[in-house]
């Protein structure tokens, strides 16, 4: 064992936790940190102790210290509309337009993706079968995701929080890009950039979700999983009308296709547990079925009276 003092060990451990949290560790920093951790179990445990404490400190979001909406974002501002380029009267006119209260509804039909520019310069994309109502004025940026799924790119406003209500939950953006999906009494929030806060409207059960993480909220509570920014991007492939799968079960894949197509697809028996990956056009279910049946001859396709397609496996035991 080395003779380092307890205080020194803790100070070094704290510095590593802070850098890791800020994402400023370089490859060589990580190598140096891991070497330091491995060299002495006191280092490892001191580090673990602080990592856990810093994570537990997320509970501060439930404290009397409320998140402040007036914090200007240092994110690069979105390109403002052309009105602003002229400056002067043009800019004033544009401001006047923005300050008027507007409460339109937005919706996307089956198999459609709809891109919307919001009055505050933010934008959103609605996925198949989505309904959103809105309330925008100079003090308010409220959206209500009544059903479906949408992706939001939030233009940071120094004074007005961007809030999306979804069932019992409220998601507040602090300058960020994220998606929300409602289905089966569940809420899935995926954060592509920045951080969002999720709570139940009254600050209770507030959690922060950072970039690269996905949060799953249901009656049982909120869980947050770090899946990495690549996977978050993959989950957002629907914006381009694509479905991206990585080792997903055929049951899940068919359920995804059914979100976009009038003609439904059902997978029976053990075939539903077959895993596969790939990128498909959401509206081209037929191409997917063709690919499936040509690569595996044991899969049979039956068309049901209502036009739905049923896939089953010849060798599968009878249900």
């Amino acid at each position, binding site marked *: 064992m080395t003779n380092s003092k307890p205080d020194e060990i803790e100070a070094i451990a704290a510095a590593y936790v802070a850098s890791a949290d800020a994402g400023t560790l370089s490859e060589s920093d990580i190598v140096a940190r891991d070497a330091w951790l491995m060299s002495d179990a006191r280092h490892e*445990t001191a580090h673990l102790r602080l990592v856990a404490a810093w994570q537990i400190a997320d509970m501060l979001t439930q404290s009397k210290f409320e998140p402040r909406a007036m914090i200007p974002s240092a994110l690069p501002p979105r390109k403002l509309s052309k009105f602003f380029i002229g400056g002067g009267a043009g800019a004033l006119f544009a401001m006047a337009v923005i300050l008027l209260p507007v409460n339109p509804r937005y919706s996307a039909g089956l198999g459609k993706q709809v891109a919307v520019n919001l009055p505050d310069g933010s934008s959103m994309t609605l996925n198949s079968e989505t309904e959103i109502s809105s309330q925008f004025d100079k003090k308010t940026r409220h959206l209500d995701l009544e059903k479906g799924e949408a992706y939001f790119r939030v233009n940071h406003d120094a004074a007005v929080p961007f809030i999306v209500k979804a069932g019992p939950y409220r998601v507040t953006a602090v300058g960020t890009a994220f998606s929300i999906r409602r289905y089966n009494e569940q809420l899935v929030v995926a954060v592509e950039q920045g951080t969002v806060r999720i709570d139940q409207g009254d600050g209770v059960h507030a959690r922060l979700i950072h970039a690269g993480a996905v949060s799953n909220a249901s009656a049982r509570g909120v869980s947050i999983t770090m899946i990495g920014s690549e996977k978050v991007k993959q989950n957002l492939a629907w914006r381009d009308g694509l479905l991206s799968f990585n080792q997903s079960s055929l049951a899940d894949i068919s359920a995804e296709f059914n979100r976009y197509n009038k003609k439904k697809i059902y997978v029976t028996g053990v075939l539903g547990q077959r895993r596969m990956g790939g990128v498909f056009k959401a509206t081209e279910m037929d191409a997917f079925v063709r690919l499936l049946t040509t690569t595996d001859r044991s899969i049979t396709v039956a068309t049901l009276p209502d036009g739905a397609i049923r896939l089953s496996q010849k060798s599968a035991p009878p249900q």
Partner: protein
Amino acid sequence: LRLPISDVKTWFVNEVLVHEPDLVRFLRRKLPSFDEVEDVRQQIYALIYNKSLTEIPDNARFYLFAIARNVLVDRIRIKNRSASHLIADYDINSVLSEEPSPHTIAEGRELIDRLEASLAALPDRCQEVVRLRKIDGLSQREVARLLEISESTVEKHVATGIRRLAEAVYGARQTIGLDE
């Protein structure tokens, strides 16, 4: 045979660290200085962690205090080499006979209150940085730009905040802090 490292880490955080308030209270009664308490605590954690790499003990709390007693007894033996056996035996017996009080780290509202108090007690600048990072959800770069300080300064404040908040998380609970 070595266990997957993540299991050991999870176990250490969930089963061992939760007993820190008691462990520290126990050590404080037996050791004269704060530095020594910290030193022995780190030593005990290292021992239990190394042991758990080969086999995770069934009863973490029991095992933790068994190790704590061993470490304390060793210390007493080394310190009292020149002193009479009677003194050493008395100290050792007092370590072995003492039962730690059964409390773990604070939870729920109490934990939030503790974190809040700890945050409020931080120096102004440090407190502002921790609030912006933890509650307002800003990135390190955003905080640096907002407060017009360097990113490395932000990181130093965060490191200080982490240590202070850890004290709130693992510290002895207020309601039973009178015996200290």
